[in-house]
Structures are given as C-alpha cells and as structure tokens.
C-alpha cells in the first residue's frame, strides 16, 4: 500500500513549522517499507484525496481564510467520513471545531469535525512548553511548545487528548480533543517530531496494522531534554503540585 499524506493549506497554516508533521509521518512510514507520498495542498487548489491530513498553525486572517475554504469545499468532512485520519494543530485545531474567533473579534464557523469552540482568552497568550498526560494510556507523555491566545471549550462529544501537566492547553486543565480518528492539539514542535508514538498511532489508524518499533534514539534524547527542562523550571519556581514524569520512553 501507499499512504497519501496531505498537508492542508501550507500557504495559510504553515506558520509554526507544523508542516514537519507531514514529513515525520511520511518518513516513519517509509522507514517501515510502507510507501508514502507527501502532498502540499495549497489553498488555491481543491483538497486532494488522502489517507492522512495535517493542519498547522497560522495567523488570524489566514485561519479565517482556510476555514472558509474548507467549509465551502466539504472535502475534509467527506474524507473523514471515509475513514481518513486528521491531525490538526493550534489554528488548525480551532478550525476543526464548531466556531472560533476571527481577527476582528467576531465568531467564525469552523468545519465542525470536533465538538469544541474557541473563544479569545481574557489573559495573556499561552506561550511556552506544554507537557500533557495522554488519556490513551498506550501513549507516553506529550511534549511540545504552545503559542496561542484561544480558550477552547469542549462539548460533550469531544474527549480530551490529554490532561495538562505543565502549560495551558485548552485552558481548563485539559489539552486537545479527539473524536474518532480526528485529533486536535495545541502542541507545536512540531508535535509528531517530539511525540513519535503519537505519529505511530496515526499511522496505525491509517494503515490498519500494527507497526514495528523504530530506533528513536534522537527523538528519545530530545524528549528527555524537553521534559527535564520543564521539570527543572517548575522546580525552580517551586510549584507544588506533583507531576508524573516519564523520561524518553517512547
């Protein structure tokens, strides 16, 4: 088989290096002998058919433009209906929800693939390392860098992806949302480079098979460093509540 991996609107949602998620998925498939094609789907063209879709972060005006395009086209919902896998990060995550706040402060309709809505947060932007304990206990700690001003409110049909251990995430102590094979998250880094187990979960959904482990030495070293950095900072700040740490076991 060959996987078609679509990076959605990199011209609009490519601000934070999240295009790297597509690269990570394609390489991890290829390293296992699974063919993978990476397609950059710019906003001017129809969204191609794919097995996996990645949406990244973007600025306010670009986010609104991308959401309108996806809503009008309907191709992403149809793909999900066929069983496609979606990873949406930051602005992309907000787009997949029911509504989000545009640059002008007005609420905009999202694609509605996740039962969440995002409003402007009252305080400062959430900028910094984000560490979260995943709801799916097959996954190790999730690590990344968040940079957003949104407060994301989950509806009854949106299970959280994880519980926040350090950082802000959705704003209510949870991070991200999952519905079926659609995942939304605030993790940049890009997310899959820092969380290869999450990449493999998406790949196993898309291929329908169990995947043999890879030799993730570099990823493990990066995870250990970032998780330790968060822990040391918290220790310095004498934050009381305890966090479970898990170093590098991906």
């Amino acid at each position, binding site marked *: 088989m060959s996987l078609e991996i679509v990076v959605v609107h*990199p*011209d*609009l949602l*490519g*601000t*934070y*290096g*999240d*295009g*790297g998620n597509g*690269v*990570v998925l394609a*390489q991890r498939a290829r390293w296992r002998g699974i063919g993978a094609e990476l397609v950059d789907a710019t*906003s*001017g063209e129809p969204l191609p058919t794919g097995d996996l879709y990645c949406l990244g972060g973007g*600025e*306010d*005006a*670009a986010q*609104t*433009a991308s959401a309108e395009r996806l809503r009008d086209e309907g191709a992403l919902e149809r793909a999900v209906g066929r069983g496609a896998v979606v990873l949406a990060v930051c602005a992309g995550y907000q787009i997949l929800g029911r509504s989000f706040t545009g640059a002008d402060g007005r609420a905009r309709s999202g694609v509605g693939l996740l039962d969440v809505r995002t409003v402007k947060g009252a305080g400062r932007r959430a*900028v*910094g390392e984000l560490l979260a304990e995943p709801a799916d206990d097959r996954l190790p700690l999730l690590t990344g*860098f968040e*940079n957003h001003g949104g407060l994301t409110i989950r509806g009854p049909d949106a299970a959280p992806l994880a519980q926040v251990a350090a950082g802000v995430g959705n704003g209510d102590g949870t991070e991200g949302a999952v519905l079926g094979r659609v995942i939304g998250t605030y993790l*940049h*880094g*890009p997310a899959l*480079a*820092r969380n290869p187990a999450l990449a493999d979960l998406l790949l196993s959904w898309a291929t329908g098979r169990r995947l043999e482990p890879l030799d993730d030495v*570099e*990823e493990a*070293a*990066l995870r250990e*460093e970032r998780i330790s950095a968060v822990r040391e900072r918290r220790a310095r700040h004498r934050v009381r509540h305890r966090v479970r740490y898990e170093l590098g076991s991906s």
Partner: protein
Amino acid sequence: MSAGTLPVRTRVAVAATRAVNALSRHAGAGSGTVAGGNVGLALDPLLLERLAAGRPMALVSGTNGKTTTTRLLAVAIEGALGRAATNATGSNMPAGHVTALAATPQGAPAVLEVDEGYLPRLVASLGPRVVVLLNLSRDQLDRTSEVRMVANKWRRALSVSPATATVVNADDPLVAWAASGAASPVWVGAGLSWREDAVGCPSCEGRITFAAGEDGGWACACGFSRPRLGVRIEGDDVVLADGRRLRVALALPGRFNRANAVMAAAAAVVMGAGWEDAIRRIGEVDEVAGRFAVVGVAGCAARVMLAKNPAGWRELLDLVCPGERPVVVGINARVADGRDPSWLWDVPFERLRGRTVVATGERRRDLAVRLHYAGVPHRTVRDEVAAVRAAWMAGRGTTAAGARARCARSPHLAASVEGEVDFIGNYTAFTDLMARATRTGT
C-alpha cells in the same frame, strides 16, 4: 564631541551614557551598547530625540539584512556626508540608538538599525530623512507580533510622515503594502526567496500570485500589485530608472548581500551620495559584525555565518550548497533567538545531504531530530568549539589535501583558502562562538 547646544540635563545624560558604556566594556560585561543607553534614557527621557535633532538620519528595518544594510549604508554615505553615527553591533532598540548617537558629534549623520516593532515610534519621533524597508517574514513568533500586524503599523506611521522618504523592497508584498501610503518611495527589486509569509494579500485578504522565476513580480486580484521598479538588479548590475547600468562588485558573498547592497546604495543616494561612489564604497566591505569572516577556532579556520529565521537559513544554504566543506550548525533558543525552534522544520536541511554535518548548541537535539528526518547523517557535539574541531577532523578526507597541516601551521594561510569549515548559527549560537574565536586576519 561638541554637545554644547544641548540642555544641561541632556549633556549629563550623554556623559553618563558614555561613562557607563566604557565601564561595561572594561568590566567585560558586554559590548557596551545597552547599559549606558538605558542610564542616559533614565536621566533624560527625551535623550534620543535631542541627540537626533538636526542630523541627516536613515533608519533601516526588516526581518533579515538589517545589520548588514545598516553597515553598508553608513559606509556608502561617508564620502558625501562624513562618518556616521551607527549601531554597528545590532543593538537595535532605543538604548543602542542613544549609545550610537552619544558617541558622535552632534549634527553628524546617523544610520540606525531599528527593531521592526520600534520603527513606527522612531519614524514619528525622529523624523528620519529616509527609511529602508527590507522584508518581513516569520521570526521569533513566541515574542513578536504577526508580520501582517507589523506591516500595518509601519504603514500607519509612514503615511503620516511626508518628510520621510522610503527605499522599499518592492518584491516583498508586505513591505510594499507598508510603504504604499508613504511619501516618495524608491521601489527596488531586491528579491524575495521566502514567499510563505507573503501569499495572503495585505490589502484585501485575497491571495497574491507570484509570476514564475526570480523577477516575475506579483499581483492580487484586488489590483494590489508590485509597484513599478525604480531600481532593478540584473545579474551583477544595478539598472536605474533612467537606464543607467552600474556594475556591483562586492566582497560579501551571496544574492541576499547584493540585494542589501543595492538597497543601501539607493538610500545613500536619497541622502545625497552619488550612485558610483556609494557602490564603490560598499564593494569594499568584506565582513559585517563578524558575519562571513573567517575565524580561528580550535586551531582550524571556520567561515562563520548567522541565520535567524527560515528566510535567512534558506539564503545561507544557497550559499554553502553545493560545496564539500564540513558544516557545523549551531542552534540555541534563548530569548534573543526566540524560545521555540519549531522553525527548524521550515528550513530545507535536506540540502545538506552528502555533507559532513555536526549539530551543536543548546537545542542541538531539536536540530538532530530535524536532520534525522531530512536524511542527513550527522553527529551532535555539545560544545561549539569542539563541534567545529570534530567537523574539521571528520571532513579532512573530503577537503583539499593538506588541510590539516595548513590549519595547524598557519591560520592566515587557512584563511586564504576561505576556511575549512562552514559554521552557521542562529543569533546567540553565533555570538557565543565568535566570543571564543580568534580573528585570523584578512
């Protein structure tokens, strides 16, 4: 050093600025450009405006090329206007500006590099003769505003400054938008290799279409399009609106430095220099604040380069590829670098395949993962100097024969063959290495 026309309070502030900077340099606390300026501004909040009064002044801003263009412009006007006050080390906020101005006679010309966020305020308060707008792209997203917001703020400030001329990179839609309400803009076709931040039309939120090729122009359906160029770059030449064609021979490498040079020359002409004189002077500059210099590191020669964001990295990878020298890449993520190195995934490191590559710096592990997925075999070495050494050792077989002996015997000789190792670092990785390197002479 005549500060005689200034109020007493200002003279005290100038003296304090100089004294604190001198102390800071002697104490080895830094390059002595920020602490004094801050003290001076505390003593006289209007110090910058007072020191700026009566000077022919140019401000240079943009995401990439600020420091280089500032230096080239200061050099270019030296014949016509004399030695300029300038913040040569890239301290590009008001404290650095105060230090630069306080170190020169009142009335001397000034060429100041300005942080993108401070530009609107300084255009309004200093009333510069010319502002140079280079480009705008993503940089340090964890602490700076979105580039579109910056462009809009520039536009508002420039549209109410009729006495300020602008020299504008017309190939970048965002800066063209910023200058679209400005008085007498000089539109320069300075190129734009990174278009990912420019496809959204700043005028209507539609999409900008770029014509194929390097110099094809751009347009949006709403009618906003590349302005008619007053200055074009054709190969090694610059072509002016009146049809004059001048050869631009530079000691600095790379397409982007040619663009910086032409922008600087165009601004020098606005300030009163002649084109020929400006270009001749610019051509003699062979390094800028250490960038592109060949320095001695652990006994071997390294050509050192600074790249801070995806646009800058793309330009430098164009410069070092193809090639066979080992490449050391240094990545930090301190506040001055931006704390989120996710942008590493916007850089086409795939181009380093086949080279000897060493990853170093505090965020070498982020880089190592990026290189791993780019299919670039590499080593990671924690210490920057050790990394340069390791790269040189590993690359001995692939660089010119006898490289080791040359390096060991004479760094000057090594410098004459343009260095044995290419080092590219982001901001603090670059400055850390430079602090530990020795100049090999020119």
